[in-house]
């Protein structure tokens, strides 16, 4: 939804406005209210979903909007996570206001270095190189002793962040609302980025890069910047994930973790704002139900869903949802969209 259309929408009578924004309102209400009445364990699953929604949105920035197929996005997720974990483990710094910005910075820095190498090529080679770079980081985390707790691979036993407010202690639900607020900020920021001239230029690059170049755009710089931005959001998600999960292992940097946002974006619908969020919801909750029945078969189910989504549900769930919604609003609200 472009800004122009948004302004036009606001001019419409309130009933039609209500119908137009109803999906967002319903989604928001569910996000705010539902976890409060869920059992404790489901609350924590729900938190995981919101964190992965941030991760998936960051991936959608480079895949869905810019058309860069990266297979190493977990590198920035893990870099952010490791930054937070190392700060807490080695230096005892668990103040939120220090470690989260630092985590984002480290992730963005990693993305800046990797992007510089990877963006020299495009298409298939880009995919391969991001994959190899992600695995490079994985092997560093696996081999460097400093990045692990003695006796294990990875760092465990971490706690939630210190807010600097005396007398405040976390519960599952308050942590959820904290994550939710960050999610909403990210959602808004990504909405602004994708609807800015910069965002339109990115989509131009996705559709036809030589044309954008001939129009005078520095396409390399655009891709580089969005790569770094995306890395920063992924790092934020990684930092939150460490607080949520209380541990981080080298596998969080590897290709298995990179695969998740990819699945989420493709299931939900790439290049849309809500798609990655819906995709994250589907993946996290299917994983939860799979873990109840057949935990060993989860990768099989994940791969199966992914293949089916690519083969038969091109465009993702969000496209179908929005079509359905258009039909409903057309019938009851007499607006054409």
């Amino acid at each position, binding site marked *: 939804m472009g800004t122009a259309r948004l302004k036009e929408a606001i001019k419409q009578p309130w009933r039609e406005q209500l119908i137009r924004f109803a999906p967002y309102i319903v989604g928001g209400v569910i996000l705010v209210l539902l976890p409060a009445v869920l059992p404790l364990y489901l609350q924590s699953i729900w938190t995981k979903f919101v964190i992965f929604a941030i991760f998936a949105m960051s991936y959608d920035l480079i895949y869905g909007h810019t058309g860069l197929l990266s*297979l190493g996005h977990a590198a920035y997720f893990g870099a952010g996570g490791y930054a937070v974990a190392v700060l807490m483990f080695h230096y005892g710094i668990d103040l939120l206001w220090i470690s989260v910005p630092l985590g984002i910075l480290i992730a963005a820095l990693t993305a800046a270095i990797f992007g510089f190498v990877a963006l020299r090529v495009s298409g298939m080679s880009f995919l391969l190189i991001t994959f190899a*770079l992600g*695995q490079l980081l994985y092997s*560093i985390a696996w081999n460097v002793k400093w990045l692990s707790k003695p006796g294990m691979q990875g760092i465990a036993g971490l706690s939630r962040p210190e807010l600097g407010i005396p007398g405040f202690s976390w519960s599952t639900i308050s942590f959820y609302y904290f994550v939710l607020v960050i999610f909403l900020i990210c959602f808004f920021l990504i909405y602004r980025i994708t609807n800015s001239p910069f965002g339109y230029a990115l989509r131009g690059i996705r559709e036809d890069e030589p044309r954008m170049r001939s129009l005078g755009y520095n396409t390399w710089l655009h891709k580089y910047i969005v790569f770094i931005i995306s890395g920063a959001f992924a790092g934020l998600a990684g930092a939150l994930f460490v607080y949520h999960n209380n541990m981080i292992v080298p596998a969080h940097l590897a290709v298995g973790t990179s*695969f998740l946002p990819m699945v989420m974006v493709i299931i939900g619908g790439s290049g849309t704002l809500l798609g990655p969020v819906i995709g994250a919801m589907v993946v996290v909750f299917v994983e939860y139900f799979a873990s109840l029945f057949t935990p060993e078969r989860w990768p099989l189910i994940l*791969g199966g869903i992914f*293949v089916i989504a690519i083969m038969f549900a*091109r465009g993702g769930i969000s496209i179908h949802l929005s079509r359905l919604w258009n039909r409903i609003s057309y019938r009851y609200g007499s607006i054409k969209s």
Partner: protein
Amino acid sequence: MLLFLIASGMSIVMGLMGIVNLAHGALYMVGAYVGWTIAVHYGLNFGLAVFLGGLSAGLVGLIMERGFLRRLYKQPNEQVLLTFGFVYIVTNICIWVWGGGPRLSFTAPALSGLIYLGDISYPITRVVITIAGIVLAIVLWWVQDKTRFGAMVRAGMDDKEMTMGLGINLERVSMFIFFLAAFIAGVAGVIGAQLLGAYSWLGIEILLFALIVVIIGGMGSVQGALLGAILIGVIDAFGKALFPEFSMFTMYLVMIIILMVRPSGLLGRRV
């Protein structure tokens, strides 16, 4: 040389079909498990194990190509993602069938023993692997550059529509190529199982090696894959000897340097 066995199949598919088969490592793994089962579990002939390992991987590859990849014609991104989905599926089915525990490496009775070249002794297995790699390289190079079939393949690489317009059944060619690549991956799996055994994260690990080789060598050329494999093999060996702490990183370092200088790989076709 094992590296070359793995990477060559991948390189061919990449060149001809313009897609990266991320499931290549998974196909290798299928070959390794099947070969292990036949050669160790049933104690049958090693040659039979090689053949059946290759055949089973080839069949899995054929199913992928016929059933799925062909329907996504001209959508390389989707095709690549699809093969990655197959990594998960194939890996998990392997764990399902063979269990999660690793299989130890084994030596076929026919290939045990040492060979002496002057003062230095080599295990026969390794010599055989090297010879197999060299033979494969020569055969592949010969097929690609000197035969009618190779000409069809190269024509298909350059201009799909025109080649099909000339009455060449490119569908059948690419089906065969995909099968061949999967077959080579399976054979490499059986042979490689002698050195590495078989385990559940083999798919990704092998994929990574193959990718680095192909990136360095350049896509779609057998010679490139050979050069890349030799280079990586040597660098890896020296890296392990000189700075064992960082042996994992030397490979990446070389890859990054080569990319900075020649983005299309050492012997790559222009991309």
